[in-house]
């Protein structure tokens, strides 16, 4: 559809009054926004050489479109700096792929939020946090890029809480859910390398995350002990589905796992093997479905699938594992997929810096 010109609002010159004006228009996530003054929006677009009306994502049901311009407006409102903008653009280009299904994952009662994991050198260039208080507040890039995602979903794609966003409870990541992968001290290849990008290219992975589960283990001293507690979190009856998983190992836990010589692939295999529940147990809580069991145990089943058990995911590749967080503490985390499984499949894409 041909685009119409971006609408300009005449708001009060007083900054506080302009913030109130944004509230009155229904443009916020509940917190104050930076009024999207035209000069700031133009500055945000300076990192892009493509035309401002270039469409980078489309809503599959309503056909609403996200242009670079609209993305920039929301990025300003979220508090982003222009150097944050390429991450936001890459994230939506990845989410635009049909298998991510961002309509379903943002409209559903499941209440998921798009988690962004930035991997590669650009994360450091824009001072993203991959370290202490990884998922917490305090870092502008993490906080505002994640917030801009939410504002775009709300303002551009009209995923309005209670109307088109029917989350039963939602989750705190719906305000902002964006981290960097920790490169410092990481013994495994970074995700961007594992994903096949050339050296120097930074990637963003997007995942419809259904929440956040802390995995505490300060006593385990072997990979089996540490990953055993992660697998148990992944297989709890409230979370276990055929869906994908994100696991962020704390540096203390990573030191135990990789220190014993385990690779990422070994850890994925261990988690897939052990994150499981018996069919009998699944029936006991009313979550067993023949169709799902057959999907997991069919002709294309992973060799690690065990009969009479339901595993989390379809294969070890469904488990993204990397390292993040501060040096101290045996606190890793597991982030479950949205709702019942495979309605949204995680995607990744390169952050294109060549357009400057």
């Amino acid at each position, binding site marked *: 559809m041909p685009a119409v010109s971006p*609408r*300009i*609002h005449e*708001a009060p010159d007083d900054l506080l009054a302009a913030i109130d004006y944004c509230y009155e228009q229904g*443009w916020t996530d509940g917190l104050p926004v930076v009024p999207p003054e*035209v000069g700031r929006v133009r500055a945000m677009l300076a990192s892009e050489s493509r035309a401002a009306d270039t469409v980078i994502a489309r809503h599959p049901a309503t056909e609403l479109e996200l242009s670079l311009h609209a993305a920039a407006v929301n990025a300003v409102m979220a508090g982003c700096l222009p150097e944050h903008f390429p991450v936001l653009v890459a994230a939506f280009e990845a989410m635009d792929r049909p298998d991510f299904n961002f309509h379903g994952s943002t409209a559903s009662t499941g209440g998921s939020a798009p988690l962004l994991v930035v991997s590669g050198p650009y994360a450091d260039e824009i001072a993203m946090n991959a370290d202490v208080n990884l998922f917490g507040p305090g870092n502008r890039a993490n906080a505002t890029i994640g917030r801009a995602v939410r504002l775009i979903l709300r303002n551009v794609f*009209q995923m309005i809480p209670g109307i088109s966003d029917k989350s039963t409870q939602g989750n705190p990541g719906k305000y902002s859910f964006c981290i960097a992968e920790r490169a410092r001290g990481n013994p495994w290849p970074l995700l961007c390398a594992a994903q096949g990008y050339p050296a120097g290219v930074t990637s963003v992975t997007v995942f419809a995350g259904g929440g956040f589960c802390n995995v505490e283990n300060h006593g385990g001293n072997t990979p089996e002990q540490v990953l055993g507690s992660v697998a148990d979190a992944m297989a709890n009856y409230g979370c276990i589905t055929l869906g994908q998983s994100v696991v962020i190992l704390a540096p203390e836990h990573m030191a135990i796992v990789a220190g014993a010589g385990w690779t990422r692939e070994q850890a994925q295999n261990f988690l897939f093997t052990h994150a499981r529940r018996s069919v009998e147990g699944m029936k006991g809580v009313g979550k067993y479905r023949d169709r799902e069991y057959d999907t997991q145990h069919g002709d294309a089943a992973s060799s690690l699938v065990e009969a009479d058990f339901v595993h989390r995911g379809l294969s070890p590749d469904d488990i993204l594992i990397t390292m993040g967080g501060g040096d101290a503490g045996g606190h890793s985390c597991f982030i479950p997929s949205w709702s019942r499984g495979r*309605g949204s499949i995680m995607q990744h894409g390169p952050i294109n810096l060549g357009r400057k």
Partner: protein
Amino acid sequence: MQLYAPTSTAAKRKAFRAPPLANLEGMRLGILENGKLNAEEMLNEVGALFVQRHGCTIRTLASKRNASAPAPAATLVKVAQEVDFLITGLGD
């Protein structure tokens, strides 16, 4: 202070409702099930009531691969050519 609106600049899609059916007698009925638990069973029960009460014929049972994604356009185009009306709904 001039502010840009943060909303989509896509032109609004023209949407319209199909004209209502004058009656249901002998109409061709399509069923679109979303793949959730019990969806097919529930919709078949509803379809059976249309057959029983209005002499409808069930022409199509289409399934969505992904319950939360819009039905593929090809599915909707095909169904639209084969039926007079369609029922759908969430199973769970």
